[in-house]
């Protein structure tokens, strides 16, 4: 199932998430995180996309997983944050 969300991050940029979602298992098959935000280093977004494959679409699970990837890799966002990215993914299902 291919889903999409458009979410204006509060005080930030416009996030557009494209989600390939498996409704039976509630898992992310694939995800593309797009928008006019900034992330340093840029390659970190691809890393987040890879690590989110086969993750359960649940607010707490997504938030802590993204937060952990960001902290572990010293990722710096501008115009985007962990909360906003989590929200953007969840909005694909609403």
């Amino acid at each position: 199932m291919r889903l999409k969300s458009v979410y204006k991050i509060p005080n930030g940029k416009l996030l557009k998430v494209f989600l390939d979602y498996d409704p039976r298992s509630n898992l992310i098959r694939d995800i593309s995180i797009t928008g006019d935000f900034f992330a340093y280093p840029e390659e970190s977004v691809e890393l987040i996309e890879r690590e989110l494959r086969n993750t359960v679409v649940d607010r707490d699970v997504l938030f802590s997983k993204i937060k952990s990837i960001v902290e572990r890799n010293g990722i710096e966002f501008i115009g985007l944050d962990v909360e906003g990215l989590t929200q953007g993914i969840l909005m694909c299902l609403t």
Partner: protein
Amino acid sequence: MFNMSEQWRLLKTEDRTAYTNMAIDWAVLKANSRGLVPPTVRFYTWKPSAISIGYFQSLKEEVDLDMCKRLGVNYVRRITGGGAVYHEHELTYSIVIPESHPQISKNIMESYSRICGALIRGLKRLRINSQYVPINDVVVDGKKISGSAQTRKSKTVLQHGTVLLDVDVDKMFSLLRVPSEKIRDKLISDVKQRVTSIKHVLGEELSFEEVADAMKTGFEEEFNVELVDGGLTRTELEDSKRFEKNYFSSYEWNHRK
């Protein structure tokens, strides 16, 4: 006592394609990171006119590719984040400088502000009062006249951005995708309220050279340096050709999202 200021390189490259422009910025970043060239400021224009999109944007989501083809407008994905920009009547600038340089902050937001300070000084030379508005804009009376985007690779900062000489919002929106046709007119009128240009502020058109001269002084004053006219090195030319071929003119790069 002489107060010898540091010398940086100044490049002026008018009328290059979108692919070449993005490739040169990357090649200069690479050369600077290897210590082969001094900090560099470049002023440039785009021919044909082009849309650049941010590194994280979806090309098809943001750009009307059929319209680009029809109007002969190129499109390219940048190595910097940020939004889609239509480059036509503008001076584009780029600055490449080591992250460790005393004139540049380790803090990304602070360095945006500092580099935009050079643009503000340049605009002041043209009798235009402007302010920096975070994250990445310079505004005149609340209207955007310049937007910038920054990346840091190999401990080197590249920031590039626009200074609008004139702006054609209708043409820009014919090339950019909008969420729905219903709101296109509303969006266009909103953007017309929020964007301005040197021509609009001064009531007269200035040439690329006039604006480049002002911006040169702006960078010199802000960073207390002397900008010395120069050219690309052979290594930079070779790298830029390679980057143009392997990345910026390739389908894989531009359509990767």
